[in-house]
């Protein structure tokens, strides 16, 4: 095994082109587990922690460009106001030690159905920026997840950043787990409201994280956008049903399919209530479930 240690993005891309079998590693929270348990013996590791460009974030053209190597802890402390939904999801990732190392880029690279940031990326309409020596492209988050732990990357490509619109309305993330911390989601949910826009997405509820398109259309059509009054229970219930209906969960070690559907409905109802209250009151952070 080789350990490749690029210091610039160009160098990293050149190495990836040369060695498509090289496994990118940043926070190590997925790759090292596979190495420690001998589930994987790649020909090379491509360490991205030395590439300064990946560890930066910036704002331009009304979008936040979040480098793939920015750890969750920095998302929470530096971007809590700008990307509240992503910060909420980041707070629920593992432990402080994990959040100090783990990155949104790594979450995308691993593409686990239970990854905490996926629902927020989907609901905000984020785009994933990838690059290779052939050039760069962006992929809509919803097109990025292609299967259980599979994504749309070509073998010579690296994830370089995520582009998200800064919050202009309200964003909420919620997840259910048995424990009070160190929780792998039994199911998770995100909702984003902007004037005339609703983003709704689920995690741990299907082979890939997915948007709930029908629920989104429902919100756009039915939310009292013009006269922001508290939501009727009937509306919340109808929304929750659409969200639960969008799920395609399985029975697994963390929960039954039936429970996941039920809990998603609950999360949807709650998160929508919080998001709508925030939206009406022009923001203000809430606790997630």
């Amino acid at each position, binding site marked *: *095994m080789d350990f490749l240690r690029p210091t610039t993005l160009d160098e990293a891309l050149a190495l990836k082109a040369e060695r498509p079998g090289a496994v990118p590693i940043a926070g190590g929270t997925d790759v090292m587990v596979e*190495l*420690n348990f001998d589930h994987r013996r790649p020909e090379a590791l491509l360490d991205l922690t030395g590439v300064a460009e990946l560890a930066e974030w910036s704002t331009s053209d009304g979008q936040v460009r979040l480098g793939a190597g920015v750890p969750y802890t920095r998302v929470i402390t530096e971007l809590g106001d700008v990307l509240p939904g992503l910060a909420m999801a980041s707070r629920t990732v593992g432990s*402080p*030690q994990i959040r*100090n190392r783990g990155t949104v880029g790594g979450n995308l690279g691993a593409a686990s159905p239970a990854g905490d940031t996926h629902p927020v990326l989907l609901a905000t309409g984020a785009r994933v920026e990838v690059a290779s020596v052939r050039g760069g492209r962006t992929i809509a988050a919803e097109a990025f997840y292609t299967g259980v732990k599979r994504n749309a990357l070509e073998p010579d490509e690296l994830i370089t950043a995520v582009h998200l619109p800064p919050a202009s309305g309200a964003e909420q993330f919620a997840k259910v787990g048995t424990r009070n911390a*160190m929780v792998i989601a039994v199911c998770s949910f995100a909702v984003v409201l902007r004037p005339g826009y609703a983003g709704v997405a689920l995690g741990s509820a299907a082979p890939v994280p997915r948007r709930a398109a029908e629920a989104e259309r429902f919100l756009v059509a039915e939310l009292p956008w013009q006269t922001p009054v508290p939501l009727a229970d009937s509306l919340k219930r109808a929304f929750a049903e659409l969200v639960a209906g969008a799920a395609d969960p399985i029975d697994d070690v963390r929960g039954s399919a039936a429970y996941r559907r039920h809990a998603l409905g609950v999360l949807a109802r709650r998160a929508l209530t919080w998001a709508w209250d925030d939206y009406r009151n022009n923001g203000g952070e809430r606790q997630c479930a």
Partner: protein
Amino acid sequence: MRLNVTVNGEPKQADDVWEGESLLYVLRERLGLPGSKNACEQGECGSCTVYLDGVPVCSCLVAAGQAEGHDVRTVEGLADGDTLDPVQQSFVDAGAVQCGFCTPGLVVAAHDLLHRVPDPSDEEIREALAGNLCRCTGYEKILDAVRNAAATS
């Protein structure tokens, strides 16, 4: 490969490091510092917590090569000679130690918390230590230890 890393203030070198090796393995097996514990190898238990450039991390999830040229501080590097760090002393005083296997990781995590948040609330302590499993003590005395260390430092 050869690895150069500063550990507890001293430059260290390790040879024949396998490229897929963890920083934890390097510390324990190559540098003679087994204070950081190996209990799950997947970032679930926090027993291997060390500072990497001043930030607490699970050393089982850091590839050795990622520590090249960086600064590592382990539980062995907290005391000042025979004088325990106030966090270590308060773990002893509070009875926050039983079998001692989770203790080094907890001490480092608590040490970091108190440097970031000198007077943490109970909620903040529980949250900051959520990634450090303990199967013996029932956690309560660990909370006391951190409270006491905060009060005395």
